């Protein structure tokens, strides 16, 4: 049994529709009209969020009394907290569940007034009998404690006791590095301007420095997990997102490598690939190096083909891609290399490979003596103990020379320069909080969600098996939609699987307004790095 919430028209009249998928023909019955719905909403509000448990108990009793077929029971199914949001649509999905875009209803509703956008990440129960997924627990635990301009802000946590699902509400970020890079590569065919690259990198490091100084390793940094705020107060500010793999490393009860293989292989540090047991915050810095290079060239730096079904983190092709660019690691330069399991036993004869001429500078098109190249090569240092830290990187010469990094990374670097209009996130407006596609309920809600899970689980492994010609395009068929669902497993997940997309219109408007803001910004904020000690 399931139910669905439909949004109709600008005033968001909500109809509760009870779906009984077990019945032949999947009858859809409209139960409550807008008027009585409004009354119901009023009643819920007076009940308050605290009484959700009581409410669901009442609902269960009501449901039992009426043989679970009564629409009114379905009406009480809506948790009270849901009333504070207006659902816009689905913006992504991953192994954990779904991500929605919603708007907080304004306190004093008026025509044309819209509340702030919120991204709502819905977690399904991980497995039958396992309760709240450890991923959700980690994310809640960490985000509830931390507070930084460059880290995504958890604004609320909600629970729907009826179906045991958990919702995390975040400040919504319109862009992410994956989409920004893709836009430059595929639409503009032009590099990202140096001011933007530097500002993005600086803010990323600033957020990471905060995390690391609080003993948190992110462990899954990649362009799609690094969000960038759209128009508004925080325009062009980076938010590090997706803490589902993050760990506090001060006093782990188990070896850090214990809970499975982490980090998407393209951004995975060599010590992880070689089986290090107690890795450090340096793994995040490696990922930042890879992302820095990708911002410069618009292509992932090390696109290894992932070996499927390996229980350990060893990835031969990924290591080979790294060695080709950076040269072979040596025990002289990286003493602890000798102790790493996969180097030591050398079953795949990686020790024998020899790549003599490191060609990093050719790939990123930077002079070897430039500060940018110096910083990049320090991030891509083989030995994790010698790799530059976030704190050190923030002090690097690169950030002290023109153009200086700024708070709004998306501003043009020169007053006369053209502003890049990045596309807004595609929103699938046909999906509701249940993950059900409205109007055409072709399958039971649970089936739908399960499908989402299995697709994304298998995809990270399959995807790199495709012939690698640059980056996969997202627009095309089912494979790519699935790729997105997988690689974007964060709140940055972009492409709703298999569903035709509707592009929003917000991104194309108001260039004048933006320019004005830009000018002010430049005047008030002449040197961002000088202010950074405030943080």
């Amino acid at each position, binding site marked *: 049994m399931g139910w669905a919430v439909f949004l109709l028209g600008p005033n968001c009249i909500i109809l509760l529709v009870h779906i009984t998928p077990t019945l032949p023909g999947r009858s859809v019955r409209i139960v409550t009209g807008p008027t009585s719905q409004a009354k119901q909403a009023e009643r819920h509000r007076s009940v308050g969020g605290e009484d959700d448990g009581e409410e669901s108990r009442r609902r269960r009793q009501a449901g039992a009394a009426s043989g679970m077929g009564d629409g009114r029971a379905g009406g009480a199914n809506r948790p009270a907290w849901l009333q504070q949001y207006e659902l816009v649509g689905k913006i992504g999905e991953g192994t954990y569940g779904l991500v929605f875009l919603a708007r907080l209803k304004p306190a004093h509703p008026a025509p044309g007034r819209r509340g702030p956008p919120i991204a709502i990440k819905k977690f399904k129960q991980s497995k039958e009998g396992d309760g709240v997924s450890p991923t959700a*627990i980690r994310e809640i635990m960490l985000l*509830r404690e931390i507070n930084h301009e460059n880290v995504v802000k958890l604004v609320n*946590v909600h629970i729907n006791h009826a179906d045991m699902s958990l919702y995390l509400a975040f400040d919504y970020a319109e862009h992410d590095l994956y989409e920004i890079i893709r836009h430059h590569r595929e639409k503009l065919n032009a590099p990202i301007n140096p001011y933007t690259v530097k500002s993005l990198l600086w803010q990323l490091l600033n957020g990471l420095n905060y995390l690391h100084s*609080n*003993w948190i390793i992110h462990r899954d940094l990649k362009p799609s997990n690094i969000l960038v705020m759209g128009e508004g107060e925080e325009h062009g500010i980076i938010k590090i997102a997706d803490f589902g793999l993050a760990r506090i490393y001060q006093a782990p009860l188990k070896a850090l490598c214990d809970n499975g293989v982490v980090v998407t292989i393209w951004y995975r540090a060599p010590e992880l690939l070689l089986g290090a047991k107690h890795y450090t915050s340096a793994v995040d810095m490696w990922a930042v190096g890879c992302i820095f290079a990708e911002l410069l060239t618009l292509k992932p730096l090390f696109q290894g083909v992932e070996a499927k079904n390996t229980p350990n983190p060893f990835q031969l092709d990924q290591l080979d891609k790294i060695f080709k660019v950076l040269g072979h690691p040596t025990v002289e330069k990286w003493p602890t290399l000798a102790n790493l399991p996969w180097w030591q036993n050398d079953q795949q004869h990686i020790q024998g490979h020899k790549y003599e001429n490191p060609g990093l500078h050719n790939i990123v098109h930077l002079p070897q003596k430039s500060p940018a190249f110096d910083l990049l090569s320090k991030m891509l240092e083989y030995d994790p103990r010698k790799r530059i830290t976030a704190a050190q990187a923030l002090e690097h010469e690169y950030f002290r020379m023109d153009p200086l990094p700024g708070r709004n990374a998306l501003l043009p670097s020169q007053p006369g320069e053209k502003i890049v209009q990045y596309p807004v996130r595609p929103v699938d407006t046909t999906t509701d909080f249940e993950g059900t596609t409205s109007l055409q309920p072709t399958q039971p809600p649970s089936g739908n969600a399960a499908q989402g899970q299995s697709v994304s689980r298998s995809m990270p492994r399959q995807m790199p098996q495709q012939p690698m010609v640059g980056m996969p395009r997202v627009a095309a068929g089912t494979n790519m939609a699935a790729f997105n669902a997988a690689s974007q497993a964060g709140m940055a997940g972009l492409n709703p699987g298999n569903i035709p997309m509707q592009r929003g219109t917000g991104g194309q408007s108001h260039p004048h307004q933006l320019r004005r803001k830009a000018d002010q910004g430049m005047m008030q904020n002449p040197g961002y790095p000088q202010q950074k000690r405030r943080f």
Partner: protein
Amino acid sequence: MAANFWTSSHCKQLLDPEDVELVPAADRERGITPEEFRLVKIHMSFHIWRLAQQVKVRQRVIATAVTYFRRVYTRKSMSEYDPRLVAPTCLYLASKVEESTVQARLLVFYIKKMCGTGSDDKYWFEIKDILEMEMKLLEALDYYLVVFHPYRPLLQLLQDAGITDLTQFAWQGPREDTYKMDLILIYPPYMIALACIYIASALKDKDTTSWFEELRVDMNIVKNISMEILDFYDTYKIDPQRGLPDDKISPVLNKLPAKP
């Protein structure tokens, strides 16, 4: 946060002793006295500890679970949140938070094994009950899950004082005793650690006076915590194997509503 107690949610949530001891209205109406309220908390902390021995989790997981348990009852009543269900669920949630997950299935199995027969079936719950309570627990804890404990500061302080030979003895404090009290909800963990050192050095005739002076902490608080711990020993004289006697606990638990 994870490194800095002073900016943590734990620090911000520290309470006054009076607030911690307050019996929730719903429980007062059922005739539960402050003393009985305290007894149930001691008893259930012991229950968590015993259950943890069965499923074999580390000390820190137990400490976090007991802290959750005690925090819940500064906000919720025992009438509404059955302590016999909240206790194992706290252990379940704490095991996830401390990255050493115990399956709900296992907990249910060991509860039944531990609380064998007869009247003890009031402790029995099914997996579904624990999973439902897990969500209510998250809510009741206001989603604040990071807890600091006295263990780490205790070791550091013992080292600093140069009395690591007292480790074994002082360690008993946080390991077994302090979590039977509400200290963790009231005082910063390092103050609890200092009280444990204070007691240990007094009982073992170690002169730590000058070391304590150099620390520049409020010695009145340290002494107060120490007195509370010693009082607790005197008052309850808990059997380390069996916990509180059943005839003390059952009448109190019987005041709570029966399982639905």
